[in-house]
């Protein structure tokens, strides 16, 4: 027996979801948040939302407070893979199901969460690598603009890309540096690369923003992005897609932030006690310049 059973949330029929977001560190993330908030509203789910300001400890606090508030389901995008066992165990004890979005966690005990909905960053890197392998002949010098050092997407997109391009001895990554996922980072690093590397054929940027920064740097150096130097990026946000359609980027691997509808579906099922698959991969595609032109008019983000 415990105190305050009535402290639980609302009547039985509306579902309350506690969602612990990483933060709002990028446009991608904001689109992700918006999608979740909007689809919660349209699915009739009461959403408790918290922004962790990129701090795992804040996310833990938020999840703890959701447990305290006895929400029906908890969902969160882990800041980092590790370190969730304790709090998830608490959720389990409180019999609150947990859904991971965007990113998996590193735990031996898979019973701690019901399902994981999100993209596969390694696969994104592989897709980028694959396109390059297929679309290149002769020696290719690649420079890589990495995301924030230590951030999971950066690690995985690098890994995937390298795994895929390893097979082709002609493709060489001649320089790799972090641009912190930002446009100015991408621009500054690319400026330096353009001066220190005599031959650059391809830029592989871990996200669109760094790619867009690189475009500015390439233009300033008097070269033509997309032609003199080919550019591959990941994400497919609107600005990136526009550049792709304009021929300044050559290939974009999509990383879809619009997880909302799928998440709400899963949440309803989980709360109803239905079986859900352990891993739900978001639908993601890739875009070439032609595909971008076609897709651009009805891109939402």
């Amino acid at each position: 027996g415990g105190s305050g059973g009535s402290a639980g949330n609302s009547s039985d029929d509306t579902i309350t979801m506690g969602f612990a977001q990483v933060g709002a560190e990028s446009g991608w993330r904001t689109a992700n948040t918006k999608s979740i908030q909007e689809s919660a509203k349209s699915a009739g789910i009461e959403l408790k939302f918290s922004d962790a300001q990129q701090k795992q400890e804040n996310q833990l606090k938020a999840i703890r407070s959701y447990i305290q508030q006895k929400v029906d389901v908890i969902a969160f995008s882990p800041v980092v893979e590790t370190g969730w066992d304790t709090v998830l165990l608490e959720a389990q004890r409180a019999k609150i199901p947990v859904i991971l979005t965007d990113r998996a966690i590193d735990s031996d005990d898979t019973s701690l969460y019901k399902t994981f909905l999100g993209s596969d960053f390694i696969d994104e890197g592989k897709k980028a690598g694959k396109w390059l392998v297929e679309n290149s002949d002769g020696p290719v010098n690649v420079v890589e603009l990495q995301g924030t050092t230590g951030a999971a997407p950066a690690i995985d997109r690098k890994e995937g890309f390298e795994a895929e391009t390893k097979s082709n001895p002609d493709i060489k990554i001649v320089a790799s540096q972090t641009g912190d996922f930002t446009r100015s980072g991408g621009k500054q690093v690319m400026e330096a690369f353009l001066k220190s590397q005599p031959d650059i054929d391809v830029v592989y940027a871990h996200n669109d923003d760094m790619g867009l920064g690189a475009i500015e740097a390439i233009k300033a150096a008097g070269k033509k992005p997309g032609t003199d130097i080919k550019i591959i990026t990941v994400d497919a946000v609107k600005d990136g897609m526009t550049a792709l359609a304009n021929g300044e980027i050559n290939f974009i691997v999509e990383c879809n932030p619009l997880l909302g509808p799928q998440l709400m579906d899963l949440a309803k099922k989980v709360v109803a006690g239905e079986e859900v698959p352990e891993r739900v991969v978001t639908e993601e595609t890739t875009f070439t310049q032609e595909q971008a032109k076609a897709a651009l008019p009805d891109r939402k983000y």
Partner: protein
Amino acid sequence: MTAPPLVAPPREKTRVPLTSRVPSRFLPVIATFVVFVLTFGAGSIRYEGFATGQVVANLFIDNAFLIVVAVGMTFVILTGGIDLSVGSVVALSTMIAAATLRAGWPAWLVILAVLATGALLGLGMGVMVHRFGVQPFIATLAGMFLARGLCFVISVESVSIKDGTFRDIALASIELPGEVAITYGVVIALIVVAVAAYVLHLTRFGRTVYAVGGSESSATLMGLRTGRVKVGVYVISGFCSALGGLLFSFYMLSGYSLHAVGLELDAIAAVVVGGTLLAGGVGYVVGSVVGVLVLGTVQTLISFEGTLSSWWTKIVIGVLLLAFIALQRLIVRRQPVK
């Protein structure tokens, strides 16, 4: 010749007009505490389930590491210095712990290694500050880069801690009366606070810390061992950061190079909110603890509010922080602003 009495007879009133018997130097701490209680009260009225013992306990559980780090920071700030490396040292500690545990080191050795590393880094910074006269800000900024850099060198990816001892400590909870549970981390943090208060107030080292903060040149001319103290506080801060890092690794059960980014600002804010002067010489560890609780409460309020968008979250944190400080100043206002 009969000399007139030397000084006028003692009077009741002194230059600082304080009617109460509370010495004015306690005022900021008390003010912070009062404001903390007020905010907490406001939270309890506004949110259901806020005024439970467990919410208070969670404040300590979630911030145990920050308390320890802030205690170390208090020492440094009391001497008029600053330590920007604490966040990175926390991260480095989690990283070392996770990596060495993965490599199969026994838990006790890991703990020793982590604490020794922290103290050693602190020593390095202290020597830079004292012997070479480098400004604390830069010396510890270099320490911050170094510690964070070492994290990346150890591993870019996060490493889970699977060691039994660590897990046991992390998951164990101590039941208190009233259905409130706390972790060992809280106990350790409170012990650290008690030890720190003891050291600061009841040992020569501690009093010299205050003297150095009050006026380093005077302290030196008074024949105090200021060098030892100036280096010492950085060692203590390094040690506390490492210990905080251990608590953090209990709390997270993982090591990660991007853990605790910006923690130094939280720690400094906690110390300053707790009434310690950045110029040195004035302040109490207890104040820093209250400062941490204040920051924790702000966070709790926000998670209870539950519907703030990301940007409003930031704005509200800022506004709450401001409200705290403004209220605190209002209470302390009778002191001359110098």
